[in-house]
């Protein structure tokens, strides 16, 4: 495993996820969240450091799963396919949440589509940046 490339890919994935989710959830969906305020913490109670920790854990294991053989290979295209499948996996979780929580259908659909796009791009980034080291090393 090429740790230097792994770390670069992980940081790039984290920065992308952070910016994408800030734009997607913090700006584009902001008005939609106002319609379901009972399901969200008030702005002052949002635990921002924990939000970052969650994104770091997600980005780290997203990259790790790709690199450690569970999704490796294929470069950009391989990363894209991997990201789409993992996005679909999370989309299933969102569908389950919609069945049990009074989310609006607009939010559920946006989370699914937005999530698949997010992880497809993150997969392409990781696939582009990570190159395995020499096998003998």
């Amino acid at each position, binding site marked *: 495993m090429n740790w230097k490339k792994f770390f670069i890919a992980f940081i790039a994935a984290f920065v992308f996820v952070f910016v994408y989710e800030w734009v997607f959830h913090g700006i584009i969906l902001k008005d939609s969240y106002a319609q379901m305020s*009972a*399901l*969200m*913490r008030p702005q002052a*109670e*949002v*635990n*921002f450091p*924990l*939000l970052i*920790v*969650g*994104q*770091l*854990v*997600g*980005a*780290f*294991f*997203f990259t*790790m*799963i790709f690199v*450690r*053989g*569970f*999704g*490796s*290979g294929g470069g950009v295209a391989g990363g894209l*396919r*991997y990201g789409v*499948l*993992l996005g*679909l*996996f*999370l*989309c*299933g*979780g*969102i*569908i*389950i*949440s*919609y*069945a*049990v*929580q*009074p989310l609006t259908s607009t939010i559920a659909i946006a989370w699914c589509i937005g999530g698949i796009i997010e992880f497809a791009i993150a997969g392409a980034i990781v696939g582009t940046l990570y190159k395995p080291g020499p096998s003998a090393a």
Partner: protein
Amino acid sequence: MNHKRGFLAFIVAFVFIFFFGFVWHGMLMKPMYQATASMWRPEADFNSHFPILILGHAVVAFAFTGLYVSKVGINSAGVGFGYGTVIGIFACGVNIIRFAVEPLTTNILLMWFAADLICFAIMGALVGAIYKSLNAD
């Protein structure tokens, strides 16, 4: 790709995750959800969304199995267990983000951690034990 084995693994994964969810969320965590009732659909509303709940589980099982089949493809319960474990940790990152923005209790978060780790590790072992690529023999 061995479509017959892949389909069989998907069906087993779906049946397992559905029954695991029924026991874990529907029975074990029921008091926790009752204590936070405003965050969840009322019983009648939930019952009318039950087909969507089944669809969500099917999507999760499909993506989980699809990723294993297309990217791992090794006939081994141990490898599948490892795959499921890292997928479970990845899912925990998503749970942390949800906890940061939704008024969930710490007990619910911890139970979701345990559920994702146990459920996906076992599901991975099942998929790994069942799936066998066409050129494996």
